[in-house]
């Protein structure tokens, strides 16, 4: 059992981890995929570097600093977070338990940029197979995503729907799968009141009654949505202490929106770390 599990190893997550660890808490950082910081070729506007610093070095140094302090930093994709009465269970390649969770998953978009997604939300577009799967009993459904997270959603739906197809929207499926997979990029989602079909960029069309968005960490906040965290557009809504609407779940950095800057991520990570310490002490 960890005191705090942090999802994301950028400047926000690592900063939160440093404060939590230094106060004596057991901290695990889980990360997967590429951070925006890693992609930045040069950062000239962050305090303390005479000639600026490249993003990848800053990112990797942060992870090394956390490990050096005794924080467990593991590369695993988080596929689900569940709140139990006393603690949280974090599903990744392994399963972890924690008293508090900090989401620092970056600013990747919750919704893929496909025409029709916003229009049909709650009318055939869903973000949670366990919640909404039973509305699609015996129907054809599709899952948009290309990672383990998408496969997990497809497996939940397999037992309910008549057919499940995975749409990778131009990406390569990261795991082998028992499901039919369509790799073509999606042009639009169509329907009349509710979803009835998906149109691809090559002009082909398939019929579907339900589309489950399962981008996982690539979509940053969709497991947040499944946990019941209130979002503000594509960002996670937090109070002034970085707490979400769920006690014990905090968010920081690009995931909360606003300035997409390292300095802001470090500040919010600090605050989230301190808030998590406070939460655990008063638990």
């Amino acid at each position, binding site marked *: 059992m960890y005191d705090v599990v942090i999802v994301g190893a950028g400047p926000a997550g690592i900063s939160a981890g440093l404060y939590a660890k230094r106060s004596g808490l057991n901290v695990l950082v889980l990360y997967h995929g590429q951070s925006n910081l890693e992609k930045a070729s040069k950062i000239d506007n962050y305090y303390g570097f005479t000639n600026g610093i490249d993003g990848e070095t800053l990112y990797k140094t942060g992870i090394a600093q956390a490990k050096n302090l005794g924080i467990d930093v593991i590369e695993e994709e988080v596929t689900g977070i569940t709140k139990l009465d006393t603690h949280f269970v974090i599903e990744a390649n392994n399963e972890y338990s924690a008293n508090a969770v900090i989401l620092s998953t970056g600013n990747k978009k919750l919704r893929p940029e496909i025409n029709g997604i916003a229009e049909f*939300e*709650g009318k055939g577009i*869903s*973000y*949670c197979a366990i*919640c909404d799967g039973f*509305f699609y009993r015996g129907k054809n459904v599709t899952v948009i995503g290309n990672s383990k997270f998408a496969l997990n959603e497809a497996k939940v739906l397999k037992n309910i729907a008549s057919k499940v197809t995975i749409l990778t929207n131009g990406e390569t499926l990261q795991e082998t799968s028992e499901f039919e997979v369509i790799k073509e990029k999606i042009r639009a989602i169509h329907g009349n*009141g509710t979803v009835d079909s998906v149109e691809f960029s090559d002009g082909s069309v398939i019929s579907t009654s339900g589309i489950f968005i399962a981008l996982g960490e690539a979509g940053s906040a969709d497991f947040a949505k499944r*946990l019941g965290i209130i979002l503000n557009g594509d960002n996670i809504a937090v109070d002034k202490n970085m707490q979400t609407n*769920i006690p014990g779940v905090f968010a920081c950095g690009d995931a909360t929106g606003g300035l997409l800057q390292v300095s802001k991520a470090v500040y919010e990570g600090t605050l989230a770390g301190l808030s998590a310490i406070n939460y655990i002490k008063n638990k």
Partner: protein
Amino acid sequence: MSVLKITGENFENEVLNSSKPVIVDFYADWCGPCKMMSPVIDKIAEELGEEVKVGKINSDENMELAEKYGIMSIPTIMIFKNGNLDKTFVGVTDKTSIIEAIK
């Protein structure tokens, strides 16, 4: 006011024939986000008192109601005024947005 259990049997009487605005929360027991929504609904009932009626509908046990109102994602919160559906929120929604919609 306490939160009512709404079913196919009492829906017409409690919701459609209500003289007060009614907030209903479609949920299911296995749905994680619904568990986050539930205390928000309780709090609204407590805060608004006699001004409104607040109810919860187990969508699994009341599939015909869920189908009638085109529920395809839960939690879904619906506000009824004078027997008509006035506003729908899909997904976990904050207390303020719901209270604003009822006024």
